[in-house]
Structures are given as C-alpha cells and as structure tokens.
C-alpha cells in the first residue's frame, strides 16, 4: 500500500478542490464569469451547490494562488485585485469536531462558547498566515502583485506581534509570525483540554474566568489585527478580504456575527462568504442585506437554470484541459456531436437532417408507427413526415425541431420496453442517447467538479489514443459519473418523519434519493409512456402546503446539486423558503432516469408524489399540448 503524500491528487481526487493547496488550485484555474464579480472591492456571498466551484473561487483570491496562476488573463485580474485574501477553510470533519467538543455532555451554552472560541482561533490563524503572505519578500518583486507587499522592519514586526499577542491573550515564545501561529495552535489544544476538564467535572465558570480568551469576538479581533498591521506597515487603507468557505459549517454565533458585519464594520475588511443555496441563515441574511446602506453587496450564484448559461465556462475549462494534455483537436472532434439530447426550438439543425432516410427521420417514422398519440400530434400540427425538410423554417422550428430530442428518447425507450419493462428498460440505456459533446456539456451543468471527473478521463484516453472517443465509452463514463452522484445522494441523511416509529419509517421511508427517484421516474413516464407531449413535464413547483420534512429534504437536494432552482424574475441568492419555487432535476441524473436534457414544463410536486405510479395525469389534457 502506497502512503504517498496526499497532495498529489489522482484521477479520483481531482473531483474536488476543497483540500488542494492554493498552488494546486492555481494550476488549473479557469476564471468563470463569476470571478469578475468576486474580485470587486465589496462584500460578496457566493451561493452554490456542492462542487460548483465555491471553494476554488475563494482560494484563488489568496496571494500564493494568484502568484502562481498561469492564464492569459491572470495579470489583468492580479492588477485589479486590491485586497489581501485570507482563506478560512471549513469542511465537514472540522464542523463535526466543533460540534462534538466535550462529547455532547456539555451544556449547550458551554459547548457554544468553546466552539466559538475554536473557530475564532482558526480565523486568527488564517489572518496571521495572510500577514505572512504579504510580508514575503518575494512578493515585492512580483510585477502585478508587488503593490500588495508590505515591509515592516524586524523591530516593528516584533512590536506588532507583541500587540497582537496581548490583544488576543497569547504568549508566543518569540515575537515572530510563526510563533504567533504556534501559539494559536496551542490555543486550539487548550480549548480541547478545557472541554475535557469540564466533562470530568471541573466547574466551567471557574475555567472560563481563568481563560478570558474564550470570549474574544471574531470581528473585533480580526479588526484589531488588520488595523495594527496596516499601521505598522504604513498602509492604513490596505484592504483585507476574509474568505469564509462553507459558512454553514461555522458555529451559529460566528455566522450571525459575519452576516451582521456585512452591514457595517471596519472599512478595511471585505467579507466574501460561500454558502449553500438552502440555508437556515437565509432570513438573517435577507434582513442584513435589507439594512445595508448603499447595497454594497454582491450575491454570486454558481448554478445555471438553463444549461446554455454554463457552456462558456465549461468550454473554456475543457480547452484548458486539452492544452494541458497536448490535445490540439476540437472537443467536437473528440466526442462527436450529440444528435438527440439538446436539440430544441432554438438549436440549429441542418435542413438535410430532416430528409427521408436520415437517422432523425427514421426515429420520427418509427415512433409514429408505434405511438398513436404521436401520430395525433403530427396530425394536429399538420406535419407530413415525408416533407419535414420542405417545411418553412418557423413552422419546422415550432412543430418539429423542438421535439427531436423527445422523439429520440421516447422512441429509444419504447423500443426497449418491447422486451423489457420499467427500470429494466431504463437500465439498458441506448448508449448513444447521452453521448456527444453537447450532451456532455449539458450533463456537467457548468459544475467544474463534475466536468473534471467526467470529461477528464475521456480526454486522457484521447490523448493516449487520438481517435474519436466511441459513444459507448462516453455513455459508460456518463453512467459512472451519474452513479457516483447518486452514491453521494444516498449518504445524505434524511429521516422522513420523526414521529413515526422505526418500523413504520422503514416501510414508508422516502430518503433523499428515493424521493428524487419518485420524481425522476414520474418524469420519465411522462416523456415515454404518457400521451405524447411536445413539452413534457420536467420540472416541479413546491406546493404552499408542502410539509416541513419534505422541504428539508428538498433543501438538502438543492444543496447537493440534485435539483436546480429555476428562478423567477425576482431571484433570491439564497432560498429562505422553497415553497412556491420551481425546480428541475439536475441533468447529471438524466441518464439514470432517461430524461431529455430540457427544462420542460412544471407541475405541482404534490401531484407527482400523490400519483407516483402515474395513475393521475401530470397535466390536465387540455394543458399538456
């Protein structure tokens, strides 16, 4: 077994950037359009599901990452950024450790104080590391970042360290940056000792009285540090960007302080926070934003309700991956075109593709032969299959082009279902349905983690064997990625109803994945089995009377990226309530369910869940066409 250093990610590990150091992140960073908003001198909240690139964006604002970044626009960004990024890491393991301090035997208020103190210590460590970044002598000679460098004489630096240590109640062994970090690490150790002592019976009030550092405020302590550093370096207006990853992992008191700090605080501190879309702090955030003078706040949403919105970033990332692998061919050459999955009324398809004898024409003809409702559709729209190529452009777009992907999918699954039924038919997917460049682009949803995980191995295959990647190989990779995502969804805890006993919960359970399965399977039946619909139901609206446990499950699905918010005109950066909102399933789940990569129509979630077996039409007949 190889215990290689974990900072060398393998194929599997490249799925996430959470644990990569700034230099590794910089090696492959392609700036999405959101990065332009994030580098501005204002507060920002980056909102997105898992894997949408929140961590990467924040990490790229650190000086070590910016220094190493090689990109054609890197200097442009470096010249614009005028704050020092201080990245405050968070992950589920650290979050669990904070919650478990004292082994759940401590009183809640005692536990909160200790968790809060640990997180403040963590923030201060990040700030001191950021100070170290700007004091790095190498930074001064950097052509575009040199202006962020600071020079503080050894004597002044020692004085600064002493001032910080006194204010933060620390006793570093030496007046140096590294000793200050060491003292902060010692504090984390001390906090766990205090928790243990209280567990063993020590009086918490006495321990707290003797350890006043436990009550240091996060914002006040950081502000003091920033002000002292700026004064010592002779740069009183230097800006510091505090980059909080996965803010929901921080203790509640810290979250509240930070969200309140968005309103008014030290002018030299910018807050860049990353959060999941569904968040218990949404209401607090909304009230904070509402009270903010000058609206100096930027919500940045990292998801794409409409697939085309994510294409630009995905194409750029694929181009970069190709360059890294020495591939000169275009992605269209490598993967071929997707001929069924994304065509809609706005997608250009060659007129010749509609002529009799083509694959597209054959699919239409075969479906018409076996599907009376499709024949009805053709008749009511006056479509003569033999003359589709002769139709006027607008007419063809309205009646034929927009249904090509639905026809392909319906025909493929209906022909399979002659021999197989239900999920068995779905599991025997037509390998060509979810292959091709455009399909891959849609499936990855502009999500860098998914893109790297799905397309990376295929590009590596092409690099070693420069032939078009066969569609079955692409389909297998898509299926693997989809299954991998489903594996994650399985691990997201969801107990449907606490009031039911274990036996009943087991029987009636709808865990997160099984809830999504009900929705996906119902959509599939609407596309394949119900009467033909030119615009099938592929999204849902959460009913006003949806029960709380269902909302919780949907919130988890939203944060995991399994459902995508389709915003109305007044979109919110975070969803304080899911009621009344419209969602679609992630296209990463489409291959599993056998769904077209389209937004489709919406129906009520209640309607889907109350008729999972499809007894009830998802739409009244009059509305379905």
């Amino acid at each position: 077994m190889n215990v290689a250093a974990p900072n060398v990610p393998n194929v599997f590990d490249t799925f996430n950037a959470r644990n990569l150091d700034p230099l590794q992140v910089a090696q492959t960073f392609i700036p999405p359009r959101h990065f332009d908003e994030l580098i501005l001198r204002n507060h920002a909240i980056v909102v997105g599901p898992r894997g949408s690139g929140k961590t990467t964006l924040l990490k790229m604002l650190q000086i070590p990452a910016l220094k190493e970044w090689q990109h054609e626009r890197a200097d442009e960004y470096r010249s614009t950024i005028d704050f020092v990024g201080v990245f405050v890491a968070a992950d589920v393991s650290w979050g669990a450790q904070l919650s478990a301090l004292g082994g759940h035997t401590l009183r809640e208020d005692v536990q909160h104080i200790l968790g809060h103190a640990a997180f403040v210590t963590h923030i201060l460590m990040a700030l001191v590391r950021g100070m170290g970044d700007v004091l790095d002598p190498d930074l001064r000679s950097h052509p575009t970042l040199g202006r962020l460098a600071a020079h503080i004489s050894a004597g002044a630096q020692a004085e600064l360290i002493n001032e910080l240590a006194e204010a933060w109640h620390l006793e570093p062994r030496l007046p140096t940056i590294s000793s200050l970090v060491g003292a902060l690490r010692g504090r984390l150790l001390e906090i766990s000792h205090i928790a243990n002592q209280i567990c063993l019976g020590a009086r918490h009030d006495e321990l707290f009285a003797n350890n006043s550092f436990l009550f240091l405020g996060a914002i006040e302590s950081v502000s003091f540090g920033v002000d002292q550093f700026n004064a010592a370096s002779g740069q009183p207006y230097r800006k510091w960007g505090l980059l909080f990853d996965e803010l929901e992992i921080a203790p509640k008191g810290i979250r509240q302080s930070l969200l309140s700090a968005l309103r008014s605080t030290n002018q030299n501190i910018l807050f860049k926070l990353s959060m999941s879309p569904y968040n218990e702090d949404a209401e607090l955030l909304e009230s904070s934003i509402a009270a903010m003078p000058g609206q100096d706040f930027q919500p940045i949403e990292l998801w794409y309700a409409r697939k085309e919105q994510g294409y630009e970033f995905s194409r750029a990332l694929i181009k970069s991956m190709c360059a890294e692998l020495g591939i000169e061919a275009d992605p269209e050459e490598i993967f071929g075109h997707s001929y069924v999955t994304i065509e809609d009324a706005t997608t250009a398809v060659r007129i010749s593709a509609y002529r009799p004898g083509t694959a597209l024409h054959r699919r239409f003809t075969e479906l018409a032969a076996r599907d009376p409702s499709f024949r009805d559709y053709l008749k009511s729209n006056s479509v003569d299959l033999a003359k589709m190529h002769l139709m006027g452009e607008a007419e063809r777009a309205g009646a034929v082009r927009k249904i090509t992907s639905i026809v392909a999918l319906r025909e493929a699954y209906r022909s399979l279902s002659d021999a197989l039924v239900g999920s068995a038919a779905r599991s025997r997917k037509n390998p060509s349905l979810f292959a091709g460049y455009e399909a891959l682009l849609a499936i990855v949803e502009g999500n860098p983690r998914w893109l790297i995980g799905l397309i990376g191995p295929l590009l590596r295959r092409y690099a070693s064997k420069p032939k078009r990647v066969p569609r079955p190989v692409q389909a297998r990779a898509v299926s693997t990625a989809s299954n991998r995502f489903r594996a994650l969804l399985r691990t997201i805890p969801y107990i449907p109803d606490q009031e039911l006993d274990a036996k009943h919960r087991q029987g009636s359970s709808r865990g997160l994945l099984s809830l999504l399965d009900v929705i996906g399977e119902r959509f599939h039946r609407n596309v394949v089995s119900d009467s033909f619909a030119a615009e099938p139901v592929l999204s849902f609206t959460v009913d006003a009377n949806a029960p709380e446990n269902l909302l919780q499950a949907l919130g988890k699905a939203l944060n995991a990226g399994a459902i995508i918010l389709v915003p109305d005109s007044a979109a919110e950066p975070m969803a304080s309530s899911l009621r009344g909102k419209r969602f679609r399933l992630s296209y990463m789940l489409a291959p599993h369910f056998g769904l077209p990569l389209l937004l489709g129509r919406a129906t009520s979630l209640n309607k889907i869940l109350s008729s999972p077996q499809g007894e009830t039409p998802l739409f009244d007949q009059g509305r379905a066409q």
Partner: protein
Amino acid sequence: MRRDIAVLSDGAFNGSDRFDLFISVLGYEHRSSHLARSYPELAYRRVALVFPQEAYASYEFNQAALTKLRYSMIAVGSSAAEKLSAVIGEIHEATPPRALRLAVDISSMSRPLIALVVQWLQSVPIERDVHVTFVYCPAVYVEPSDDRAPVAVSEPVTPHFAGWTIAPELPVTAVLGLGYEFSLALGALEFLEPVAAWAFSPTGEDVRYDKAVKRANEVLNTNLLPSRTYIYNVREPFDCYIRLESLIYGLAQHSRPVLVPFGPKIFALLALLVASIHSPRIAVWRVSGEAVARSGDRVASGAEIALHTEFVISHSKVSDDEFLSQAPVFSEA
C-alpha cells in the same frame, strides 16, 4: 487515568481460556449469544450489554440463553460505562494483583457501541493493566438488503471519535473499510471530500461476500489507485492492524485522516483502536441507515477470531509539545 493500547497478536479464539470478565451483547442477532452458549464457563464475571430497542428476531432466544447462563444485564445507555466500571471494581477487589483479563465479543455490537467500549477500556478506573481479547464471530452469509434504504446518519461514530485538530487547514484524507452496502463507501467519500483515499477490502469470510463487496464498490474501485487498495483477511486482523496503523501514522503527518469502517466489525474495531492510539488526531465516521432500517438476523458461521490487546496504564502521557509538533511548519516570511 489514561491507558496506552498495544495490539499484540491474533489467532483462533481459545475457548478453554478463563477470563476475569466477559462482555457480550444481548441483541437481535442469533450470533450475539454464540460465544456465551459455546463457552459457559468463559469468565468469572459475565456481562451482556443490552439493546432494549432490538427486541425482535433472535432477541428472546438470546435473552433466555444469557439469563440461564447467569449473565448480568447492563442496558446500553448513558450509565452503561459507570455500571461496567462498578463491575470491574468488584473484580479488582476480588482478584490477586495482576493484570485483569477481559474478553469482549464485538460480533453483534453496533459501531458506536464498539467505540464506547474501546473508549471505556482506555479509561478503566483501576490501578491495574487490562489485557483484552476481542472476539469476532463472522456470520453466515446473507444477501445484502435493499440497496435503496435511506441513510440516517453521516457523522462521527461517537462524539469522542470526532477527534480534534490543531491544524484545521490541513487536508482531509480518508481510509475506508469496504463492505457490501451498495455504493455507500463511494458516497462517504463524496460526502467527506478528502484529498486522497485508501481502501481496505475484506476477504476470507465467504466467497459470496467477497464478490458482493466487489460488486457494491465497482465504481469506487475504478477510481482508486490500485496501490491505495489493500485486501485484508478478516481471520488475520493483526496483519491488517499493522498496515492500517502505519498508513494512518504516515497520513497524520500531513493531513487529517478520517476512518470510515464499513464491512466486518473486526475492521471497525481496528479503526477505533488505531484512532485511540493516535487520539485525538484521527476521526472515525459512520454512514449508515441503522437508525431507520432494521438489519436481518445473523447466525454465527462457526469461526471465532481473536485479537489480543493490552490497555496499559500510561506513564508517559502525550505532551502538548508532542501534539503541537505534528502541526505543519509555518515558513516564516
């Protein structure tokens, strides 16, 4: 009082050994009373930890058997450790001054219960070393249950095993024990988002089990480097321990390792022992549906695997300096 743990050797369980205390379980699995029934005179004192909420399947059978064999019953709950300590205090008074000898049957224990027992053993409140033989009885193969059962928990196995760190900025690494729960190990990795992952895959119980493990982890296996997968024999836990401990020792130098022990309980025990040895830097997590779904009954296959350990009173407590020295070096500007 803190104890150092030494894992010494393994082998087939010798039923003719006599212990001061045998800790068993009263649960729904038929195998939970297997050792007790096989070796009625195994120990001077015999205790069964009781899962009152598991009164189904073979529970009544086990209850009758253990009652007949005069086992003391201690309900699993907040006072269980205190009651166990009281029992061991009585044994301490009644036996000559030598190391106490305990046997613990982990076969039907939940992972949290194994964790609580290991934690308790590390702080047994008597001035004596404690030698512990853990026993694991594999079950007759049962097909995996519905792979769509919802997961109820993704969390540290107990709060104690959440671990602690003085370097939260270090990357997380994951070490998995694989089981035949469909795609759960893969899902756990996606959930924890480690920078790198290693897997321990079991063999030696039943060929059907080996195949089921392979099937359940197909996607995971295609993504893990072969050099990061180790196949261990459940009948040779000491060998597995050596490899696991050295892996964790290496990883802890530059990351925050999280152990996620799916699969045979013997691996969960090894994970908890390793985490205890390197406490508090190593976290042990569980991802399961056990709070929601009932598992089926399990019958002992007949194999009895022993792992011999010592919980020795520590005379050299881990100093703060030693813990701090594990922190990454911060290069000063």
